Every structure is written in C-alpha cells, then in structure tokens.
C-alpha cells in the first residue's frame, strides 16, 4: 500500500480507501492503547476513536513524517486524554487481566509462572507516571529510536532519554520489591 497515494485519494473524495489504512493499523493501535492505557481501558472504543480522529486530521497531514508516526502520536494523545479524564489503571487491589502471551510452551507449570511474571510486569508499568510509561512502551514497541519517540511525544530527545532512564529505574525497583 502506497500510503501517500491512498491519502491523496481519500482527500480527493474516495472515502472507501480509508478502510485500507484502518485494516493496516488497527492491531498496532489496539496494542499501543493496551500498553499505555491499561486493562480497564476500552481498547475497541479507543481504537475506533483514534481512526475517527485520524480521518478528521488527514487534511493536516503534510507527509513530513511517516503516517505510522502520525498514528502513534494520535493514539498516545487519545489514550492519555482518556486516562486524564478517567484517571485509573490499576489500584493495588485490582488483579490485572493480562491476555495470554502466545507461546509454544505447553508445560502448565511454566505457563503459570510466566503468566504471573507478565501480570507483575503489567501491574508495575501501570504504576509508572503516564509520560514514563508512554516513553518506555514506545521504546519497546517496534524498536523505536529515541528520535522517533521524541517525534511521537512531541518533546526533545534528551527528555525521552531521561523519561526512559527513570522508567527503567522505577520499574526495576518495583519488580525487585515485589519479589
């Protein structure tokens, strides 16, 4: 899919081609929303909102950055706005509902241990400050560079470095304390 052609086509009035963009990016948007927004966020609603907002924002897209970066930025903004309005991720009493991670491992004991590990990790990233969590998630997401993250978060590379450093430090501390 040549994104530039698709967008120009949509802007020229061929709305049906927007479906191609939605199909291409909906899993990525859902995944990013899940990692930044936490288990209580309505992933489907967030994903839908991102694509409706993206459609309205298309005339402002000037092809100066990649469409993916534009979509990630929009996702981060939509999810952070949602978190701000309904401030919640996990309280200490909540049991994080972590979807199972795909694996070929059929050993039940190992699977339980692994799920427990992910549950703790997911709960720990939920306790991070939203900005730190966003930077860290993007860092682990599609191998983003610091510069890409700065572009998505609309801040400086130095700030991204600092956010990731603090996020890793805090996460490490939380996971060590939880042992």
């Amino acid at each position, binding site marked *: 899919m040549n994104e530039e052609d698709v967008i120009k086509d949509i802007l020229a009035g061929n709305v049906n081609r927007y479906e191609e963009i939605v199909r291409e990016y909906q899993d990525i948007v859902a995944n990013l929303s899940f*990692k930044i927004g936490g288990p209580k966020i309505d992933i489907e609603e967030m994903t*839908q909102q991102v694509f409706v907002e993206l459609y309205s924002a298309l005339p402002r897209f000037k092809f100066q950055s990649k469409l993916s970066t534009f979509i990630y930025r929009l996702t981060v903004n939509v999810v952070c706005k949602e978190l701000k309005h309904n401030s919640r991720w996990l309280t200490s009493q909540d049991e994080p509902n972590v979807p199972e991670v795909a694996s070929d491992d059929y050993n039940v004991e190992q699977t339980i241990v692994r799920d427990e590990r992910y549950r703790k990790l997911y709960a720990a990233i939920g306790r991070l400050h939203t900005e730190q969590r966003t930077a860290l998630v993007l860092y*682990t997401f599609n191998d983003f560079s610091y510069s890409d993250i700065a572009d998505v978060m609309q801040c400086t590379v130095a700030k991204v470095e600092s956010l990731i450093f603090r996020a890793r430090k805090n996460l490490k501390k939380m996971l060590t304390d939880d042992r």
Partner: protein
Amino acid sequence: MTDDIFIQQLRELHYDGKVDVTQAVMAEVRKKPLLVSAPDKSRWSLKRISAVVAACVVVAVIFNFIPTYTHQVDTTQLADDIAAIYDFHAGYGDNNSYYEYYLEEALLN
C-alpha cells in the same frame, strides 16, 4: 532481574484480543465529509492576523501608559513645583497671613 529481561518481556507482552473496528469507523467517516486544506490555511492566517493585532494593541497601550505614569512620579518635577510654591510664598516676606488665608480658603472649599 536485569533491565534487558524486563524490556524483552515488555516487548513480548501484547494485546491478543482481536479488534476489528473497520465497519464502525467507515460508518462514522462516511457521515462527515473532509474539509480539505483551504479552510485550514485561512484559519491559520486569521489566527496570525489576530495575534499581530493583539500584539499591536498591547504595545500601543504600554507606550501610551508609560509617559503618563512617569510624569506622575517624576520627583524632579515635583521638587520644582514645591520650590516654585516656596518662591511664591517668599515673595510675601515674613508675613504669611495673606498666603495662609488663601490656603485655608482652598482647604475649606
């Protein structure tokens, strides 16, 4: 646990619920036609014009205000005025009654 292990775990952690919002999004976007760039540009220029006008008003107000304000607190001017009153007063010699009469009249009125 080293940083690299939990970073790796975070990479593996993903949402496995299937999301398909295509139909819902398409139904939504078909309802609203896109406003292509022209109105966007004019909105920007309108914003810029408003900003420039607002800046001019602020500058005009400041420059209009400063001379009035400095005149009011100009201590040199004030000292000159006081000296002039004393000079006027001195013109009547030691007899202050004439000056004091007018001063009292002024205060009473």
